[in-house]
């Protein structure tokens, strides 16, 4: 037990860095920001695995020690308890004087009848009873230790479930634009986190098409800001030959195949059309702009590697409800598209897409490119739907054609859920059973002279038991009242 206390306190303290330092598992961006602002400290922290606290060697070793000590405790206790469960109630103590509960009552109707009544009352109260001619041994509350053991075994069950099934899980993120279809295969994911034993066969084939996404906002009068109150994504799911319409909402995931899809984010995807000087369309697709604030001012990058005489890159802002600020800059004052506007900085040069290195779709290598339009070039590019901008030097034209919305979803298969849920159920059941049960022992013996026999009750409890006296008094009382009833009956 001493080891358990020390290890429990150690686990608690070892968890603290996991909340102070950004974790790769829960806050990967925080880790990147930390690296950029504190490169020196980052190296030190990283060397002691502070960014992966809960999978680190030191944290793992503490909880593994805790579980080893737990198992080392459970096994002998279970064996012992198994013997106790099959054993008879304990023998009466050598000295009755030290028993916390003692009471003597006349053996009304003879000792045999009195012992019968006592035995009946004890059995009715679920005591385990051994009766002799002149004495009774009884014990109650085996559930206390049983529950305690179930609780601890179930904790091991949680850990075992995680260890055995955790590796088969996977999760991935994907942005789906209105009208787009996501098909569940590895290549369709924007990012994917496989468990250590993942294989591609685990991805069951299905398709999810985003038909529409409708957010609802309300003006918070106090903070004078728009707040979302509802997000509704209408999707159609195709599995095999069956197609169904489903509403996907926050707190209401979609189940498809062996995985679940969660609605986590949303934003705007302006459709950008680029034409060459002859008017032939060389690029025409919705481009995801990531929102930066509650009024959905968003940033995005457009890359047009082919079709024009030079590679074209654009970096810009999207404002759902653009208004002019005093400074001349634009701002959005509403998350709904009342005045959708795109502003762009346009570059030419090598976009770096042919080098074979995977490029981040949200980054443009502007240092190696030449800006030809936009901020600080004298020709601002500010487009509302239908606006066309002619690129300088007769390169072609850019149009903000229309506007669509997108949703960000997380798709996840977590095989640990069932085992953890079942184990957790037993954790709670064991805890409640153990804490709600008192371990009590009762002995009864016959005393007194031949003329005036009486039953002497003795009782004790293992552990704190403020209600021992009250409970046993009630038990004794029952035998008396049933004796009185019998007497009256005669």
């Amino acid at each position: 037990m001493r080891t358990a206390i020390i290890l429990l306190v150690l686990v608690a303290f070892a968890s603290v860095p996991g909340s102070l330092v950004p974790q790769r598992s829960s806050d990967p961006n925080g880790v990147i920001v930390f690296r950029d602002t504190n490169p020196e400290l980052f190296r030190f922290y990283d060397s002691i695995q502070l960014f992966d606290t809960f999978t680190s060697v030191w944290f793992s070793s503490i909880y593994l020690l805790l579980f080893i000590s737990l198992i080392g405790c459970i096994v002998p206790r279970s064996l012992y308890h198994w013997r106790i469960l099959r054993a008879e109630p304990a023998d009466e103590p050598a000295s009755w004087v030290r028993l916390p509960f003692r009471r003597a009552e006349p053996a009304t109707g003879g000792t045999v009848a009195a012992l019968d009544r006592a035995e009946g009352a004890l059995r009715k109260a679920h005591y385990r009873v051994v009766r002799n001619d002149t004495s009774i041994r009884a014990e109650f509350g085996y559930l206390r230790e049983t529950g305690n053991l179930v609780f601890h075994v179930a904790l091991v069950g949680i850990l075992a479930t995680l260890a055995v099934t955790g590796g088969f899980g996977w999760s991935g993120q994907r942005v789906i634009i209105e009208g787009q279809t996501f098909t569940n295969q590895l290549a369709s994911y924007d990012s994917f986190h496989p468990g250590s034993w993942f294989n591609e066969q685990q991805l069951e084939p299905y398709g999810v098409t985003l038909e529409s996404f409708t957010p609802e906002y309300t003006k918070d009068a106090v903070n004078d800001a728009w707040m979302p109150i509802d997000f509704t994504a209408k999707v159609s799911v195709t599995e095999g030959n069956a197609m169904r319409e489903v509403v996907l909402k926050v707190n209401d995931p979609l189940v498809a195949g062996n995985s679940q899809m969660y609605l986590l984010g949303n934003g705007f995807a302006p459709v950008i059309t680029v034409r060459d000087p002859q008017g032939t369309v060389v690029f025409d697709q919705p481009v995801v702009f990531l929102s930066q604030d509650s009024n959905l001012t968003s940033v995005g990058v457009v890359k047009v590697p082919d079709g024009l005489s030079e590679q074209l890159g654009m970096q810009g802002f999207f404002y759902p409800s653009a208004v002019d600020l005093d400074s001349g800059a634009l701002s959005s004052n509403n998350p709904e598209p009342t005045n959708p506007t795109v502003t762009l900085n346009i570059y030419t040069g090598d976009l770096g897409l042919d080098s074979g290195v995977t490029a981040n779709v949200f980054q443009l290598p502007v240092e190696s490119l030449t800006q030809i339009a936009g901020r600080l070039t004298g020709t601002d590019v500010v487009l509302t739907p239908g606006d066309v901008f002619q690129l300088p030097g007769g390169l072609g034209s850019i149009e903000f054609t229309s506007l669509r919305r997108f949703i960000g979803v997380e798709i996840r298969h977590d095989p640990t859920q069932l085992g953890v849920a079942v184990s957790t159920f037993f954790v709670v059941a064991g805890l409640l059973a153990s804490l709600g049960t008192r371990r009590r022992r009762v002995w009864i013996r016959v005393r007194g002279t031949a003329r005036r026999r009486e039953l002497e009750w003795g009782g004790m409890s293992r552990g704190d038991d403020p209600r021992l006296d009250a409970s046993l008094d009630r038990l004794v009382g029952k035998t008396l009242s049933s004796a009185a009833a019998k007497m009256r009956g005669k």
Partner: protein
Amino acid sequence: MTNNLESISLIATYSAMAVYTLAFILFTVDLAGRAATDGQSKPTRWLHSAIAVLVLGFAIHFGAVITRGISAHRVPWANMYEFGLTATLVLVGVFLGINIWRDVRFVGAFVSGFAILALGIVAVNFYVAVSPLPPALQNYWLVIHVCVAVLGTGFFATGAALSASQLFQQSREEGKLQTRSWRFLSAFPSSETLEALAYRIIVIGFVFWTFTVIAGAIWAERAWGRYWGWDTKEVWSFIIWTLFAGYIHARATRGWRGRPAAILSLIGFSAVVFNYGIVNVFFKGLHAYSGL
């Protein structure tokens, strides 16, 4: 109408604080009165008034919570202000409830003092007007998860008050703290009784906290796609759970009963306070619903 109720709620909150202050004074006067009659631990007549005033404060406080809930059209525990408001109510309620089961009026000064402090901090620093819920919070798990968290917090707070008294009482029993100003401790039961009381109350808090973590995990699975992800709030809930698990073990281990166990209980409750007051405000994470 809604705004009206909201301001009624705030007025009621401040009134409850005023009434609690009166109760606190009465509890203190009672303790001082007992200290004066050295060795005697009979309650003075002030104690009855103290409890009566505390019940009145509780009623007003209850009104503040109810009107807040009605004006918001939802359960009154969706941001830090509301959580603090409701948790303090539960703390006072738990204290009053325990008194039906067993006389623990001697910690009344602790409890009412803590309630005043907590309400004051919450009302002054965390107050926010009623605002609609973001989609992630529009779920019945908000009712369950936060409700059991509030209950757990209430029991842990009462347990902490008892553990603190236990520490002082134990020092006094060992011959320390014999000056006049500590004589009020003679009104308290023995440190052993205090420890047994604290244990029973903290165990109930522990059960509620276990439910808080489980309900939170189930909700997190629905809302965020995973039941456990070591979000800062999850980390601290885990820390609290382990600390109190340690406390429960300490109570059953020779050499750890008494002072070490009480200190663990106080560390555990500090973690609860830290989780609410510091993690919500200064740490970033998914539980960023504090509304500040």
